[in-house]
């Protein structure tokens, strides 16, 4: 009902104007500030949503043709399951209502389902409505599972992956997240993770590591101990994915300020852009040094590495330092990929090197490049969150393996998950060599 709305609003406005008492005005000014902040966080939530498209394309592009539909399927379901799981359970485990904790600063829970607090919407947290906050956090939550998705691709059973996602987003991510962003004990220790180098990327990365270990490598990846190339099948969509992630990250980092304060958000976006750019450059040189050629998939990883690394300190690391943080992230992502490969940790898309390694690096970088935050506390956060998330993920994968099985059969894997799990191809009509 579009047009009709106006007239009402016009009436409201014209009624409001003549009052003009400065009290009213002051309130209106605050309401405007609130509207702007709220709008920016809404925009941020949409940008984080875009990251799900990013992950879908990056992961499917870097996998083989025969598993493409399967990856797309998983990545379409991930935001759906993730958002619902977080909505119906996770949110209430992450953000204590009226600072109420079940176990002080460690565990909170205020019931299943979405409970919109009553009263003045501006009262909830002063910069956005409860539902805006909820939307933004829900979009965040789902990204954690998506990180795992890439690392376990091409061999994990669809159903098992979906069950893992459900529990990881409904339980593990929010409980650990409450320690920092919910105002728990890590927050009390002044641990600083502005937008989630640890709470999103490391938690996702540790989950990925657990998955990779529990699943083992893809058939044909290691022949007589030597890592073999199983090249990703579609570079343009991998690039689309990376650009969507890059763009989405401006919302991921920028709206994590939870307000639209011009100084803050412009600072955050500039450090984000500088670190991403430096990550690209760093990984290009690193790729030239370590693997003797400019590998496209490596600079895509390098870009994301820079973004992951700046995420923790995007609000407080200096401009020049953010270039350094990104550059280092880009440089280390390449040897990290090689090392994981040598360790026979088969990660088709480089999720471990990007999210885990640089999630850690970025969190520690806050302790190194700023005065306000101590390296010790940052390290403590990295270790405790790492231990807790890795243990939970290992347990989850282990339990799912016991009950449902984790991996498709050898025959299904050879044939490709597209045919064996979905009975359909990603590119019907196209001809391709299917001997890999």
């Amino acid at each position: 009902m579009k047009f009709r709305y106006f007239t009402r609003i016009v009436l409201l406005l014209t009624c409001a104007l003549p009052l003009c008492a400065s009290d009213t005005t002051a309130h209106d000014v605050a309401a405007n500030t609130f509207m702007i902040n709220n709008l920016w966080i809404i925009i941020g939530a949409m940008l984080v949503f875009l990251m799900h498209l990013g992950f879908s394309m990056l992961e499917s592009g870097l996998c083989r043709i025969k598993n493409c539909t399967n990856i797309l399927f998983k990545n379409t379901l991930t935001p759906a399951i993730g958002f619902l799981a977080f909505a119906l359970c996770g949110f209430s485990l992450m953000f204590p209502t009226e600072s109420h904790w079940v176990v002080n600063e460690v565990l909170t829970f205020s019931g299943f389902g979405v409970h919109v607090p009553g009263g003045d919407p501006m009262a909830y947290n002063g910069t956005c409505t409860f539902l805006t906050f909820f939307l933004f956090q829900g979009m965040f939550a789902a990204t954690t599972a998506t990180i795992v998705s890439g690392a376990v691709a091409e061999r994990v059973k669809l159903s098992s992956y979906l069950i893992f996602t459900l529990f990881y987003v409904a339980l593990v991510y929010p409980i650990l997240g409450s320690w920092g962003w919910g105002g728990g004990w890590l927050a009390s220790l002044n641990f600083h993770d502005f937008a989630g180098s640890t709470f999103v990327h490391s938690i996702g990365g540790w989950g990925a590591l657990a998955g990779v270990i529990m699943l083992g490598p893809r058939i044909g990846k290691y022949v007589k101990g030597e890592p073999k190339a199983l090249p990703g099948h579609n570079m343009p969509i991998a690039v689309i994915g990376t650009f969507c992630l890059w763009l989405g990250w401006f919302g991921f980092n920028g709206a994590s300020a939870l307000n639209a304060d011009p100084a803050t958000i412009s600072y955050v976006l500039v450090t984000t852009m500088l670190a991403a750019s430096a990550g690209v450059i760093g990984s290009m040189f690193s790729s030239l040094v370590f693997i003797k050629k400019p590998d496209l998939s490596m600079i895509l990883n390098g870009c994301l590495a820079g973004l992951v690394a700046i995420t923790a300190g995007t609000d407080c690391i200096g401009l020049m330092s953010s270039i350094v943080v990104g550059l280092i992230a880009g440089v280390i992502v390449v040897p990290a990929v090689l090392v994981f490969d040598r360790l026979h940790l088969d990660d088709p898309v480089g999720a471990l090197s990007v999210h885990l390694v640089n999630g850690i690096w970025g969190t520690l970088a806050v302790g190194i490049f700023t005065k306000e935050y101590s390296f010790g506390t940052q390290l403590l956060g990295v270790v405790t969150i790492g231990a807790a998330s890795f243990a939970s993920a290992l347990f989850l994968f282990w339990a799912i393996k016991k009950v449902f099985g984790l991996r498709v059969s050898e025959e299904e894997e050879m044939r490709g998950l597209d045919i064996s799990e979905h009975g359909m191809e990603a590119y019907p009509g196209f001809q391709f060599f299917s001997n890999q």
Partner: protein
Amino acid sequence: MKLVVAYIKPERLNPVKQELFKRNIFKISVTNALGCGRQKGFVSAYRGAIQEVNLLKKVRLAIAVTDKFVDTTIEGIIAGARTGAIGDGKIFVMPMSQCVRIRTGERDNEAIG
């Protein structure tokens, strides 16, 4: 001289190549193919509508050899390609009257290897 042509399962290409290499047969040409045989294909569905897939993915090998190598070649292909399941494929041997190496213009036995 003979041209040995074989239709095999795509995933057996690497083993076949290895078996042939072991037997000192290094020169092969490969083509993508689809095949329909005893392995009658399957009925799939897309959006609930029937899709009869009776052309399965195969790979076609063509190997030109001198007559005395024919048996070794056949044996090598079988060694690499046999799984025992229906659809393993066929080998066809055809007479070949000439063989020329484009680079040098060499002919026949000199050109074949």
